[in-house]
């Protein structure tokens, strides 16, 4: 089947699912809605696999399948066709999106079985998948922006899915508004790039990027890259626009798994990798990306140490891991970033779904202080969660280890990286190990603190099957992209398939020296040790000596309060930014709008009324006045005739 047909099916299947379930949004039939929704994404997954195989059969230099459907915009010399490109990069993305999407849709059938409006849920989910596919498949920035906005909308709709609860609705709003601030940056970047190169097509931009000589701070290119990165900050929850992601946990858990772990939040990383040549040509911008990524990973990990809500811990963990991905692109390791994107999708979606299973079993309880010892009651959930846990803390040979260590090595080795970036990454790894082990200990291990009226039990198969699949991927998925240094010592010398696949599509770091094997092994050793220390410490704190957390926090009360309250960032935003704007708006409304502008409109209407009433005085009902007017008319006519 030709690739354009496959592409159209790929895109239209979730769109059809959106319409089908959307038009039946009042239906309470979970089975129909869920099966249709899952089937549509499943069809997209099959198309993705077929397209991937078609792509793989092409020689390396020509791995790009383009399908143009029709002319979308034709404005003053700017022609934007509706064109989609499946190349190495987007093939990876569509496999992840549709594959994990199908699993999550399947999970949702069980999770949302008691919901009021399941059809609406599945229609929104399909709408999200459609837009995400548009985002990654578009061959130009405008089409990507279309999908960018669409996933933002889908995110808002899904976060505020239970909108009757004011807090949940507010969380949806927060996500959308913060996203929009980022979008402004994206647009500015788009305009600057168009102004610089005269095109918005990725291929053209990437090809023309090396021609730019000016790499200073205020070159158009650097400013464009910084603006685009601001867009990525909004979408992928980096400092300063990360505040929406923890609140987004108000949505249903499968939504958190799909959107806020595996796919939407990775759109920023994807965008930068798509424009890798452009970003490489602006090293100052890349520096900012790396710094922000590193700071974010540290800050989020530190907050994750203190949270008691299972989903919030995972949310901050997501922000932190996204920080790793941006750290990677910031030092030019686009490959490593994409690989971490894929493995993170595996284990984070797994853990979110697992937490969904736990929450479902605990009757919507999310506080881990009320959990414990769930290992006995929910074996499948527990063991799959263990797989995810081991992956994220960087246990050697698990998927997380393969990707994270590549990032840490590149942050040291790349000419765009530096030792302090590497150090921040290692510290983050240690904190990640600590808080994830803490989560495991408090939720699954140890004694049960479950209230007596709650009887947790294992979830149905429709919910455990995706967990098992993702568990397998978390364990073995790393072998797709084994770092070179490791591949040399393993039997059979497996190459880094992932890197080979993506290499032609991503920019090379200029001035990259030959890898120093010894340094690399030392780096691996340090990071693995740090992670182990973190895990063991957490185990000690929460299983062996449960009094230690209290003692430690009481000693560093001020610091603990600061971190527990998320560094007071939300309060700062509200106090210094949002409320002043609201007050200013109120002032503008009261003093300018009501007093001034409204007065102008009233004045206009009064004038019209006055004119009307003065003309109306002609119709007084007084016959003699009418006769007079007729007379005067006759006089005028005779005058005209006589004089003319």
């Amino acid at each position, binding site marked *: 089947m030709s690739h354009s047909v496959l592409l159209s099916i790929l895109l239209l299947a979730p769109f059809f699912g959106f319409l089908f379930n959307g038009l039946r949004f009042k239906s309470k039939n979970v089975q129909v809605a869920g099966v249709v929704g899952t089937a549509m994404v499943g069809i997209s997954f099959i198309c993705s696999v077929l397209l991937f195989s078609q792509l793989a059969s092409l020689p390396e230099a020509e791995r790009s399948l383009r399908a143009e459907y029709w002319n979308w915009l034709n404005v003053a010399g700017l022609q934007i066709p509706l064109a989609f490109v499946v190349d190495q990069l987007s093939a990876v993305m569509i496999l992840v999106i549709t594959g994990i999407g199908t699993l999550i849709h399947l999970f949702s059938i069980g999770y949302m079985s008691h919901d009021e409006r399941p059809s609406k849920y599945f229609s929104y989910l399909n709408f999200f998948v459609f837009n995400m596919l548009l985002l990654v498949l578009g061959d130009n920035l405008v089409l990507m922006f279309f999908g960018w906005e669409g996933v933002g909308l889908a995110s808002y709709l899904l976060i505020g899915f239970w909108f009757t609860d004011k807090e949940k609705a507010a969380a949806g709003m927060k996500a959308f508004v913060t996203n929009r601030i980022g979008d402004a940056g994206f647009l500015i970047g788009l305009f600057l790039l168009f102004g610089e190169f005269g095109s918005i097509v990725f291929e053209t931009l990437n090809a023309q990027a090396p021609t730019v000589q000016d790499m200073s701070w205020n070159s158009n290119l650097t400013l464009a890259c910084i603006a685009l990165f601001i867009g990525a900050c909004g979408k992928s929850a980096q400092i300063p626009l990360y505040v929406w992601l923890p609140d987004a946990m108000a949505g249903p858990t499968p939504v958190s798994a799909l959107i806020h772990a595996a796919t939407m939040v990775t759109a920023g990383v994807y965008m930068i990798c798509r424009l890798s040549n452009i970003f490489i040509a602006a090293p100052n911008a890349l520096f900012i990306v790396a710094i922000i990524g590193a700071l974010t990973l540290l800050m989020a990990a530190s907050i994750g140490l203190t949270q008691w809500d299972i989903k919030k811990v995972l949310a901050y963990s997501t922000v932190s891991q996204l920080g790793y991905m941006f750290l990677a692109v910031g030092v030019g390791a686009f490959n490593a970033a994409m690989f971490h994107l894929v493995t993170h999708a595996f284990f984070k979606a797994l853990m979110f779904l697992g937490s969904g299973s736990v929450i479902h079993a605990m009757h919507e309880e999310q506080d881990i202080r009320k959990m414990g010892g769930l290992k006995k009651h929910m074996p499948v959930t527990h063991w799959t969660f263990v797989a995810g846990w081991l992956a994220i803390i960087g246990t050697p040979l698990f998927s997380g280890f393969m990707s994270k260590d590549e990032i840490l090595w590149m942050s040291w080795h790349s000419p765009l990286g530096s030792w302090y970036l590497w150090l921040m990454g290692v510290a983050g790894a240690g904190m990640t190990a600590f808080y994830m082990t803490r989560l495991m200990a408090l939720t699954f291990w140890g004694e049960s603190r479950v209230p007596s009226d709650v009887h947790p039990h294992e979830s149905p198969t429709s919910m455990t099957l995706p967990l098992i699949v993702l568990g397998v991927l978390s364990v073995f998925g790393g072998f797709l992209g084994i770092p070179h240094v490791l591949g040399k010592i393993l039997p059979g010398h497996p190459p880094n398939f992932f890197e080979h696949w993506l290499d032609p599509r991503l920019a090379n770091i200029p001035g990259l020296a030959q890898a120093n094997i010894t340094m690399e092994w030392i780096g691996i050793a340090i990071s693995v040790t740090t992670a182990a220390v973190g895990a063991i410490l957490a185990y000690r704190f929460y299983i062996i000596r449960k009094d230690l957390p209290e003692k430690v926090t009481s000693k560093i009360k001020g610091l603990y309060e600061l971190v527990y309250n998320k560094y007071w960032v939300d309060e700062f935003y509200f106090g210094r930014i949002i409320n002043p704007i609201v007050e200013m708006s109120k002032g503008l409304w009261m003093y300018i709008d009501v007093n001034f502008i409204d007065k102008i409109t009233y004045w206009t209407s009064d004038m019209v009324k006055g004119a009307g009433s003065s003309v109306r005085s002609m119709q007084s009902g007084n016959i*003699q*006045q009418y006769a*007079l007017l007729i*007379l*005067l008319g*006759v*006089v005028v006519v*005779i*005058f005209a005739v*006589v004089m003319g």
Partner: protein
Amino acid sequence: MSELDILFYILSSMSVLFGALVVLTSSPIYSSLYLVMSMLSVAGIFMTLNAPFIAGIQIIVYAGAVLVLFVMVLMLFDLKRETKAFTKGRFSGFLKLVGAGLLCGFIAGAAYESVSLIMATSEEIPTNIAAAAETGFSPTTNSIKEISKLLFTKYLFAFEVLGLLLLVVPIGAVALSRVAGGTHAKH
């Protein structure tokens, strides 16, 4: 100055005078009587214009029928003499006077223009009635016979329509002033 001219001036001044009195008198009955006088003067003017038939029907129809009707209605109303006969408003009154005056002036001007135009285009129009009488303006040409000949040939349709009008009007008048139950009904 021939006799006809003097006659004209007397009659015209009478008609204007009585017409003015119609408007200026405060009692409506006096107004109607002055109107009768004015109409008789106008009949005389018609006579000077060599239109005896018209003069005749002016007296019969207007003075004899229409104004009698007016007087009857006024007697029915039994109105008192009005203290203020004219409408309120000095400015509007002034405007009305000015407008009417302008109208009069323009009509007169237009009349002079048109007459000189007519004179210029045609030679055979007599300039005054005395000359007209001398040039053999035969009275027979203005007789009833000639008028009725025209009426029944050239203006037949209009004549018939006029008959229809005269049928409709009394019906309308009766319909308007009907009283439920007839004139002898008790209200």
